[in-house]
């Protein structure tokens, strides 16, 4: 479904991605784990075309993303829930959700999708009229995910959705992601919460200083010595 070949990228003179290869198949949950600054968010920004293209190719459903503008990537069904939530602070919860289905082909499903995300996150229904900027961090994260779902994603990219959330809410979010995946949404997840994310993933990639150093199935990696020492502190 998504295939990245030999992606290299630099911010000015600072090279941050080296020959990154990554693949996501339809129906999977794939996780990218790695320490701070490993280049995970930069990889997602390249996919969504938010940064100038580096070298290498990124193909989604056979289409070369390198030719597209950021909004066209979204129109193709590839939606990113960015790091730090990036809620529109002066818009209400409802308005934020509506922006999630801004793309023409998704507006017809707006009412149905609103009902769906309110079912997934009942808290959002209670806060419908509240301004995004005044929501708590956890609520904003729910809103960010819900907003991403409003656009009928075929592939959903999530950048550290569990950051700063209570353990209970983290578990809740991961359960919801698993549920969404069962409903047919393919997921590419970037996470620092290695244990939880590997547990729900079909496959995972480990990134270190801009390179993919390890890849395998979720449970394989959970049993891997390097992972256990470096990321799980065991």
């Amino acid at each position, binding site marked *: 479904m998504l295939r990245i070949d030999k992606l290299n990228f630099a911010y000015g003179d600072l090279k941050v991605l080296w020959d990154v290869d990554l693949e996501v198949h339809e129906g999977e949950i794939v996780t990218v784990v790695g320490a701070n600054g490993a280049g995970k968010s930069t990889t997602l920004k390249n996919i*969504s075309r*938010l940064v100038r293209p580096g070298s290498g190719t990124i193909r989604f459903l056979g289409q070369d993303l390198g030719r597209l*503008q*950021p*909004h066209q990537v*979204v*129109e193709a069904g590839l*939606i*990113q829930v*960015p790091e730090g939530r*990036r*809620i*529109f*602070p*002066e*818009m209400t919860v409802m*308005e934020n959700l*509506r*922006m*999630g289905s*801004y*793309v023409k082909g998704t*507006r017809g499903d707006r009412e149905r999708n609103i009902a769906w995300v309110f079912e997934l996150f009942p808290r959002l229904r209670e806060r419908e009229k509240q301004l995004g900027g005044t929501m708590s961090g956890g609520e904003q994260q729910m809103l960010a995910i819900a*907003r991403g779902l409003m*656009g009928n994603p075929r592939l959903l990219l999530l950048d550290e959705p569990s950051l700063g959330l209570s353990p209970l809410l983290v578990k809740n979010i991961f359960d919801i992601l698993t549920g969404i995946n069962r409903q047919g949404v393919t997921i590419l997840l970037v996470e620092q919460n290695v244990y939880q994310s590997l547990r729900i993933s079909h496959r995972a990639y480990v990134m270190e200083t801009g390179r993919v150093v390890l890849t395998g199935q979720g449970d394989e990696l959970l049993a891997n010595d390097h992972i256990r020492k470096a990321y799980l502190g065991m």
Partner: protein
Amino acid sequence: MAVFMQSLISGILIGGVYALIGIGLTLIFGVMRVINFGHGDILMVGMYLTYLLFTYLGIDPFVSVLITFPLMFLFGGFLQKVFINRVLNAAAQNQILLTIGLGLIMSNTVMLIFTSDYKILSTSYSSATIQVGGGVSVSTPLLISFLITAGITAALYWFLLKTDTGQAIRATAQDREAAQLMGINVKRMSILAFGLGSALAGTAGALIAPTYYIFPQVGAVFTLKAFVITVLGGMGSVVGATLGGILIGITESMSAVYISSGWKDVVVFVLFLLVLLFRPSGLMGKSRT
């Protein structure tokens, strides 16, 4: 008391037009983070357009708004697409220079065509007044222009709050990158915002054409006013610009009556400095971190 009411009402009426000018500038700033120093010159183009439509086609200035608004929208969209979009990532001083330059080109082109002579657009009602009771009378053209202003402002609020495109413009102003992740074409939103801002400035020009002298350099004073209104209201806040415009209108009109018309600009700037001193982010602005 009648004098007070009189100047309060005319202040509010002229403030409506100021609000239109300020909203235009703040809309552009909100989406692009570029201050359009050619804003007053766009207003000036709107004035000349109205003058031409009146003189050569006999179209009433208030009716000509129907033509001025869409034409100035296209003009602004064109400026954005061809010039401003290219400097969005450039240093702030380069963006300022570009908008100043565009303004200079507009005023000098108009000067070449029409010379710098003052033109007067006088309609049958240019100096008419209406009694509103209590010894208070208001200028007819000012009243009509206020009603049109109020209509346009209400329509604009509806557009920004209720339509997908209007919400997308606000979203782009609040977080450009997140807006892109919603599938919003932010370049297109910039063109729309600059088009709308220009249409509002041009319309303001049309509305004041019956009561102001028309000359190529008339824009400068309005650029300054628009800037004061925008800062006063909080950069990027449409509600703030609406209030700021009315506030400046009232202040000008009051100080002209109670101090002297020569001092009204001074009073406006004193007010401006006071607001900046006590509320640096403007009336409706949020302190940026």
